[in-house]
């Protein structure tokens, strides 16, 4: 108590400051390193500038005598002085954490990475190792396939699509062209359906009205099967007209390039499979031809269904 009485307020403040400084200086480096190493980004240790040997400077105190005190080179508590310029040229931009300890792959390896993924590169030794030079980039092929389902154009198909390097406008044009082809295909099918429908109905009702007695009348009575009627020429006419119409349809579809393939699951499956097994592509024209035959056969069955429907509706009068 006598000590505190003998000291002035200024001296008390000075003593407190010195004690604080001494405390900080004692463990400054340890505290700094604890903060730095708590994360994983910085692995180096540092030394606190507070631990450096302080320079001496003259500080005037309230008395006339000049007293020399020790002041640290960097005073963290002195708000009046600007901090010293710190040379940061030695510190570069911190590197992002790397998992394998190596730099991130450059952009030109991206294609090689994709090739490895899809097995088109020899590095994996996969089935795509023998990919021919003429094959398109598999990524571009995949994009084309997703857009159109037909990376190679198909039998009698549209002009070869540009690769993905040509940018968005070309793919937009191709998408519109596909839309146009799909519309034309539907239009052709609709026109031929109308023609088949009208000819079948006309043929049916001609024979319905012109056949003798009940020769062309369906009925729910089983007795009708016991009668013997002269054969009507209905089915002969039906087959003749059907062959003509379906042959015309097949010729029209084959000779045009209206191939909209994006609805067909089989063709999409072939496109996907050809990315892993390129030899599948050689069967594509055959499969396209078989699909077109199947379509024509489906039309014939549809017309037979129409005949069944007409017989069923007229059985009410039998």
């Amino acid at each position: 108590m006598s000590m505190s009485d003998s000291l002035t307020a200024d001296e008390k403040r000075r003593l407190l400051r010195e004690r604080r400084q001494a405390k900080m200086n004692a463990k400054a480096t340890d505290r700094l390193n604890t903060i730095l190493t708590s994360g994983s980004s910085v692995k180096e240790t540092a030394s606190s500038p507070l631990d450096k040997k302080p320079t001496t400077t003259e500080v005037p105190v309230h008395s006339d005598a000049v007293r020399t005190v020790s002041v640290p080179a960097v005073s963290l508590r002195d708000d009046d002085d600007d901090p010293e310029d710190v040379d940061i040229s030695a510190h570069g931009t911190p590197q992002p954490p790397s998992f394998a300890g190596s730099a991130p792959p450059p952009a030109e390896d991206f294609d090689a990475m994709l090739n490895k993924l899809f097995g088109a590169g020899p590095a994996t030794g996969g089935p795509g190792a023998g990919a021919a030079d003429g094959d398109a980039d598999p990524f571009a092929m995949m994009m084309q396939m997703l857009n159109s389902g037909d990376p190679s154009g198909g039998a009698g198909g549209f002009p070869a699509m540009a690769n993905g390097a040509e940018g968005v406008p070309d793919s937009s044009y191709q998408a519109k062209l596909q839309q146009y082809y799909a519309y034309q295909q539907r239009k052709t099918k609709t026109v031929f359906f109308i023609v088949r429908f009208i000819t079948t109905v006309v043929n049916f009702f001609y024979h319905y009205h012109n056949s003798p007695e009940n020769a062309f009348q369906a009925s729910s009575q089983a007795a009708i099967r016991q009668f013997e009627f002269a054969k009507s020429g209905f089915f002969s006419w039906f087959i003749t007209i059907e062959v003509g119409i379906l042959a015309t349809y097949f010729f029209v579809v084959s000779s045009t390039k209206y191939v909209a393939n994006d609805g067909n699951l089989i063709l999409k499956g072939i496109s996907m499979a050809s990315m892993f097994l390129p030899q599948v592509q050689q069967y594509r024209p055959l499969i396209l031809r078989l699909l077109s035959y199947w379509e024509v056969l489906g039309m014939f069955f549809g017309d037979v269904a129409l005949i069944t429907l007409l017989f069923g509706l007229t059985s009410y009068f039998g």
Partner: protein
Amino acid sequence: MLDLQPFTILFTILLVILSKQIVGAIGKKNIEKLVWNKYCSWKTSGTTKNPASSDDSPIIKLAKLKSDLTSIKAERSKVSAQDQYAKWTKLNRQHDKLEAEIKVMNEAIVQDEQRISKYVGYIITIATTIPIWVSRVWFRKTILFYVPPGALPYPVEWVLALPFVPTGGIGLTIWMFSLNSVISSLISTIQFIFFDKKVSKPVEEKENGKVGKESKKIQ
């Protein structure tokens, strides 16, 4: 039980499959929306016919609340919060209260709409699916009609008699297949002629900067 005439079965199945195809073409969601709109207009017309009734439909109440909210918002935007704080606060409280009421009413209406949609879905299922399955089980061996002998060749008659019916007869399986085939073709034809947009051939833009005309007509 269920001893129906063959033509009755035939015609019933025709109606069921026709309605099923039409529902498929229009879309179940569109039908539900249509029914909901009719229900709302029926509810509101019932209220307008009797304005003295205090039992307003939720839709009319919601419309009133929304118009009140709009007027309060307009009034509040004209009032300065600094100059007329008390009035602004009062309007703000009314605004928040109305918003809360609208939210509750919206939820009630959404629940109502979901209930209507559910019932419509049940009706569509009952009308289009159950009769088909019942018929397939109950009438699978019923001969709906016989084709006149000589009209069709024997191989065609044999195929059309599959799977349970003697040659020359037509059973439910083939009848359903025929109906589905013809009706779906007719519906897609009608859709293409009356509802599909015409697509013209696109013209590729030139690379030298000249812009090609893109004649995409939409009718």
